[in-house]
């Protein structure tokens, strides 16, 4: 019995789970779930927060995309790409930048994307305020990435992976904002080109559904 992922591949958080699984040279069955399907009793029994992705591995159910990624990495340690070092200090560096992604990078990016995804008329003041926050964070990334190839060191890790799907959705929804925050920064731009060149990522975005959010209702 293999891994099952419940969700919709257009979700950046489902992509985190998918990319981690592919990096470990494993595969999974995607069980489609979207919108009202997330509120069924059956789904809520798996994730009481009613969100995707949910990973099923035999009897074990794991939700929260970053926790799913950590679980997959630990389960398939020793095969595929090492996404979390065994060395305690290097592990701490990965965890630092994974937290920076979670606490400082994701909120402003998601705030911008939410405006484009759910509003007929995006709120410019919300977008600008979030963009300002994001620029300050990326200034620090630029310095960090001028000293090392990836965020935690000269090795690709979960810390880098966690950024990829959010950068993708930002780029799809607003090429202008993406270019001005990413392409304008030499090392961030180079890092982005490198990490999105990985076969695991290319496989995910090769399907049109991965970049289609047109079904979402707009208010």
């Amino acid at each position, binding site marked *: 019995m293999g891994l099952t992922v419940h969700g919709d591949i257009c979700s950046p958080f489902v992509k985190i789970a998918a990319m981690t699984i592919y990096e470990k040279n494993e595969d999974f069955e995607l069980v489609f779930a979207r919108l009202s399907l997330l509120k069924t009793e059956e789904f809520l029994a798996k994730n009481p927060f009613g969100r995707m992705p949910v990973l099923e591995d035999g009897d074990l159910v794991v939700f929260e995309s970053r*926790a799913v990624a950590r679980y997959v990495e*630990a389960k398939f340690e020793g095969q595929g790409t090492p996404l979390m070092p065994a060395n305690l200090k290097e592990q*701490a560096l990965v*965890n630092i930048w994974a937290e920076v992604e979670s606490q*400082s990078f994701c909120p402003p990016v998601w705030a911008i994307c939410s405006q484009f995804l759910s509003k007929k008329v995006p709120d410019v003041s919300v977008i600008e305020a979030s963009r300002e926050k994001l620029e300050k964070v990326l200034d620090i990334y630029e310095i960090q990435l001028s000293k090392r190839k990836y965020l935690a060191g000269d090795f690709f890790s979960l810390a880098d992976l966690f950024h990829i799907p959010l950068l993708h959705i930002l780029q799809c929804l607003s090429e202008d904002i993406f270019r001005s925050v990413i392409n304008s920064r030499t090392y961030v731009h180079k890092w982005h080109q490198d990490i999105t060149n990985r076969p695991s990522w290319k496989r995910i975005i090769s399907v049109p559904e991965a970049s289609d959010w047109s079904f979402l209702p707009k208010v």
Partner: protein
Amino acid sequence: MATASSHVPKVKLYGVPYSVCTSRVIMCLLEKQVGYDLQVVDIVKTQDHKKPEFLKLQPFGIIPVLQDKDFSVFESRAIIRYIARKHEGHGTPLYGTSEKDKAMVDQWLEVEAQNYNPAIAPAVWHLIHAPLFGQQGDPTVAKASIEKLEKVLDVYEGVLSQSKYLAGDFFSLADLSHLPFTQYLINDAKRGDIFDKRPHVKEWWKSISTRPTWIKHLSVAFPGKNFDSPGS
């Protein structure tokens, strides 16, 4: 009462004991019996966190930072993961004892970071901390934040009816991570009612907030302050 193991070298912790994120780390150090020297970083008056010496340690200018000999770690949840992993062999097993336990701890630590924290943080800021930083708290934002938090607590109520703690029947990093903000909301903003009206959440809060390590931390961080006994 947990005391520092004498054979474990002390770490240096940059922060202030009343800060939420510094508290998270202090609690973890106490649970793992790791001694520490607190290096106070004044974030109010002298704004030490914005000075070049601190920015060398933490480029985002945010406390806390842990220094373990020549190695520095920042982001409180990364620090507690580091301490829990490094000191797996003694103190409270904050990652549980099996691979499944660890997966559940990671999951609920993410829930805290992604669902609980964003719901509770604005309420604590607008109700308690904003004035300390010379700003006006917005009661409308606080109200919306508490409404969001109540929805999260509804989920917790269901989960905690099945297990004693969030990741299972053991106290973990996930439960620990909830202590600092929740303490502020209950004791300073006097919003214990939202926890008390959910019996399993109430029981869970009583259990985690009466741990001797947490009580010890509160007595140091807020000397002379009285805290309501949970469940009273």
